[in-house]
């Protein structure tokens, strides 16, 4: 298997004021695989995820050091345009957060602000394709003008995924995308992740170790702001090198 590294992170540290949230984390994100970040609450996995598209910039006290590259390009370099970076590295949040606008507008917003659609019909095509890829099209095709917030939680989350897909990103970051959903909606999202794999590099943060085992090929275990172990998911779950990893996945703490 040839490995194509989409993103690389080297010696990343994140500080909130004086408090260090992430120390010395190095991880490579593979283009064709799903990478899962697991770890107990407060271990820094979400914080680290948010360094990958510079969402931490919105927190005034946050400071990031180290080297994070997207296709070899330093994303923290002064000449990097943050807005464009976030279009290339999309994100799905823990709580579904559709805009209080119509379903169509939710998906069309990204392409519209980046000028990705050449005409109205082209835009409608992008919306349809994105909703199809997010597995939501059949459920909403007759009510695209309804408010996105009127959908169920699971549908809202898939709408958010469609919104992220619509700008045609290279990487999709998912921050515990199923933690607010019921098991059926969770199963749908997991299925969706399988389908999106290969087209986008996917990084998913999850509390649910079974979910990590089901959807990912690579797993990183974080604890207290450090990366304890990173490797193939099968190895992490069946044959972890570190005792702390073993303790966590067997439910001894977390």
């Amino acid at each position, binding site marked *: 298997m040839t490995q194509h590294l989409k993103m690389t992170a080297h010696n990343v540290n994140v500080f909130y004021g004086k408090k260090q949230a992430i120390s010395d984390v190095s991880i490579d994100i593979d283009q064709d695989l799903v990478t899962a970040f697991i770890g107990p609450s407060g271990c820094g996995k979400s914080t680290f995820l948010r360094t990958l598209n510079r*969402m931490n910039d919105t927190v005034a006290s946050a400071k990031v050091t180290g080297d994070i590259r997207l296709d070899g390009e330093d994303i923290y370099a002064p000449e990097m345009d943050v807005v464009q970076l976030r279009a290339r590295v999309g*994100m799905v*949040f823990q709580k579904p957060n559709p*805009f*209080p606008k119509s379903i169509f507008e939710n998906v069309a*917003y*990204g392409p519209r602000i980046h000028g990705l659609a050449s005409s109205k019909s082209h835009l409608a095509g992008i919306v349809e394709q994105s909703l199809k890829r997010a597995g939501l099209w059949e459920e909403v095709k007759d009510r695209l003008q309804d*408010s996105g917030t009127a959908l169920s939680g699971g549908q809202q989350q898939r709408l958010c995924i469609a*919104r992220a897909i619509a700008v045609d990103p290279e990487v999709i970051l998912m921050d515990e995308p199923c933690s607010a959903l019921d098991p059926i909606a969770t199963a749908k999202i997991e299925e969706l992740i399988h389908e999106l794999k290969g087209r986008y590099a996917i990084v998913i943060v999850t509390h649910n170790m079974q979910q990590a085992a089901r959807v990912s090929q690579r797993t990183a275990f974080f604890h207290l702001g450090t990366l304890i172990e990173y490797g193939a998911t099968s190895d992490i779950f069946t044959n972890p090198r570190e005792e702390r990893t073993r303790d966590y996945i067997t439910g001894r703490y977390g």
Partner: protein
Amino acid sequence: MNKAQIHRIPTDWRGAAMQRRIRGRYAAERRFRLLGLAAVVLSAGFLVFLLSTMLANGLGGFTRTEIRLPVDFPRAGLTLDPARLAGPGADLALAGAGIEGATDGAATAAFGKDGDKLISDGAWLAVRAAVKADPALLRRRATIAVPAADAIDIAAKGHGSPAAEATVARLKAAGVLTTGFNLSFLSEADSTDPTMVGIWGALKGSIFTMIVTLLLAFPIGVLSALYLEEYAPRNRWTDLIEVSINNLAAVPSIIFGLLGLAVFLNTFHLPRSASIVGGLTLALMTMPVIVIAGRNAIKAVPPSIRDAALAVGASPVQVVFHHVLPLALPGILTGTIIGMARALGETAPLLMIGMRAFIASPPERLTDPATVLPVQIFLWSDQVNRGFVEKTSTAIIVLLVFLLAMNGVAIYLRNRFETRW
């Protein structure tokens, strides 16, 4: 361990002490509900009292007592050529025609020696208007309804002196007294004669002033609120600005009047008594209210929406204008309308910048001398003439209707922009 050793008696849920507690709880509920209801009834009662008093006193101001005055135009000694009334020189011809004297003459002819005291000082204006509307009148005798004098008007409405009431009874018996809609009250400005005063001058002044206030305070207030919430770094300077704005909103309005006097009149030499200066002064007063309301509305926009927009690659400005502002707009509008309503009812600062002058014609431009509704009410309430008592209440009704209309527009706008989640 002490905690483990606490001895617990099984709770008697049906015991007398427990029953007493339940009764006490119910009594507290009832007491609280009654108190709340009493508060609502009391405040509603005050409102009803205010409105009914104003309506009872003021509604009469929309009507006026008129006297049907017979005028014998061919013998009135008018120096007026009917042919000139058709052309563009009509007003000029009317101005020099001596209609005022002719009207007084007609009144003495009809009602005796003091006949001209029965009709209003402005009665000739009604005659002039009638002639202008129908020049053919000049060739015959005609009966024209002219406003009655102040004393007659009051007596006809039941508040006059015995002598005036006797005159009214005599006129009624003669069948010359009628009641008409007081159109001139809605189209004229201030006057020394209560039968001739109008509210339009003050209303127009209020509208001009409010427009200036809104055009300045709304954009500046909203932009400041957006900048402070979305862009400004949190440091000592922004804390200082925040404290200053909160203080500014609480500063007594008279001080804004002094500020307006010092800055706009003495430094910038803007015209005294003008609605533009009034608007500028009130904008200073309204802006902090809008900033505070705006900041609260912007704070209430969930951060998840900002994250969502940033994550698809919206720039900070796009986040603000596509998402934050539309969601905050209903709250901002509510704050704006509260500030504007306060500005509309403000009197003190406008006294300082000379808007309490006697202005007998409605302002045409923002720089014309003008007054506003609350100041007009204040001025009329100060008059000794009994006729102004009624006009004061009538002006209050107009002010309240204006306020109601403004609030109505605000509620409509708010409901239109309200986003349902």
